[in-house]
């Protein structure tokens, strides 16, 4: 029901998540931020029963995005077989000074994949084909935001749930930047 999306460009990663915190059928919050800053240049987006598990992952020293992703995946895998598995779907986006931008897709079964673009949630079914069609590895920042807006438009048109607004953030060599929220009113 919740939606996450990430698009990697040549020297940046653009991520967006919806702002709804739901409890069964009620929207409890309309401005819930699902992105967690793991470090200066790494963002973790998660949906599911994230709860308090994320706080364990903040170790205080600089991790590269790839290392952080693998560490998180290991954590998920360990807990998967325990009596208290996490049920979270994650996108980890980051910028490494040596490797450049990276987007990692992880799901509750502890699978990990580094992909140029990814989406989580039911909304992913509707928007993956749009991403397939228009994605190019050399997207500029503006083009990536336009592609993101296209996806949000499609969700508003075909998705049965109302996702009124999305937080958007961009990560590049200068760190994490907040971009303007995308909401149904303004395009």
């Amino acid at each position: 029901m919740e939606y996450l999306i990430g698009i990697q460009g040549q020297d940046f990663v653009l991520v967006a998540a919806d702002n709804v915190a739901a409890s069964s059928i009620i929207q409890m919050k309309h401005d819930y931020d699902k992105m967690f800053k793991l470090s200066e240049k790494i963002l973790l987006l998660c949906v599911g029963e994230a709860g308090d598990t994320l706080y364990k992952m903040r170790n205080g020293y600089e991790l590269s995005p790839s290392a952080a992703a693998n560490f998180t995946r290991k954590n998920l895998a360990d807990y998967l077989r325990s009596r208290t598995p996490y049920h979270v779907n994650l996108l980890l986006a980051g910028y490494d000074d040596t490797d450049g931008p990276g987007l990692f897709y992880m799901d509750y079964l502890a699978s990990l994949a580094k992909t140029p673009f990814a989406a989580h949630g039911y909304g992913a079914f509707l928007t993956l084909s749009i991403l397939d069609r228009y994605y190019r590895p050399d997207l500029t920042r503006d083009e990536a935001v336009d592609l993101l807006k296209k996806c949000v438009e499609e969700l508003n048109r075909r998705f049965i749930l109302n996702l009124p607004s999305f937080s958007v953030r961009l990560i590049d060599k200068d760190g994490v930047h907040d971009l303007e929220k995308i909401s149904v009113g303004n395009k």
Partner: protein
Amino acid sequence: MALEEICNFVKTPSEFPSLSLEGTASSLYLTDYTFQLTNNSLLNFEIPNSALLFSENHPSSVSRPFLLTHGTTTLGFIFQGGVIAAADTRASAGGLVACPSSHKVIPIHSHLVVTSSGSSADCTLWKRILYREMRLYELRNKRRLSIRGSAKLLAFMLHPFKGTDVCVALTLCGWDRADDDREYREQPHDSSSFLACGHSSSATASDTTIRCSASPNCGPKLIFVCSDGTRLQNNVISVGSGSPYAYGILDDGLSWNLSNKEAFSLARQAVFRATHRDAYSGNNVDLFHITAEGWKQRERENLREEYYRDMERKAKEVEERKKETLLKTAT
């Protein structure tokens, strides 16, 4: 399903004990349909108490040798040049590709094409039942049933099976003509004319934009009928496991004023993208174009080629962008 069968039908359901659906279909032969045509063309006909018959013949649970799934991508949309109906050609049974070249889009008559999704066997059967009923109607009433009428007829026929395992999701894509009466009497009455296709392309380019203005009932139509009772008329319909992916492309590129070429290309793109992401859709794409003159089928295209063409196109775009930036920095 020939006319003869109807005249001297004596088949007993016990001939096919395991195929309960066959038994039920046979029971449909037994009753007499009475069509009551009012001014609004309301169709009332008696459905036999087949629900009762069905439960008597049918063991409580039939075990199947494999899992039935509804993997497919079909779509249809209306634009200025008529109706486009497209579908992939993969028939899957669980994880197996049972048939890589099935026909999911089948013409019913010269101006109606049906795309199917759901269980292949059920869809084939129900398409034939629909064909038979429409032909009977035409013979009895000397005029062809409208698309909306056929959708209603199909929905009525499917209703007794609601709640059972029948899984049929058909999209009727067609063109209603205002002058069906006159045309029918003028043409020779044989089965070939009923199914006469608009293949003979003596139509010039201008003909495709003819739209009958006589009444709101004529013109292009797109109606979705499902075995759970849904009946929806719309300008864009996509059905199947690949439909969310197809909607993404269709919603983005669709407009009324597309040229024929653009519409074909959009339909192909949508099916291609859906087959790329959905495991249960794939292989080829079938495209039908329905206009006032009838339906025309485009050649079946293998989507594997399309994938490589798409990769090439993207690589070219990246190349061109690089060149542009180089030129800009140079000057």
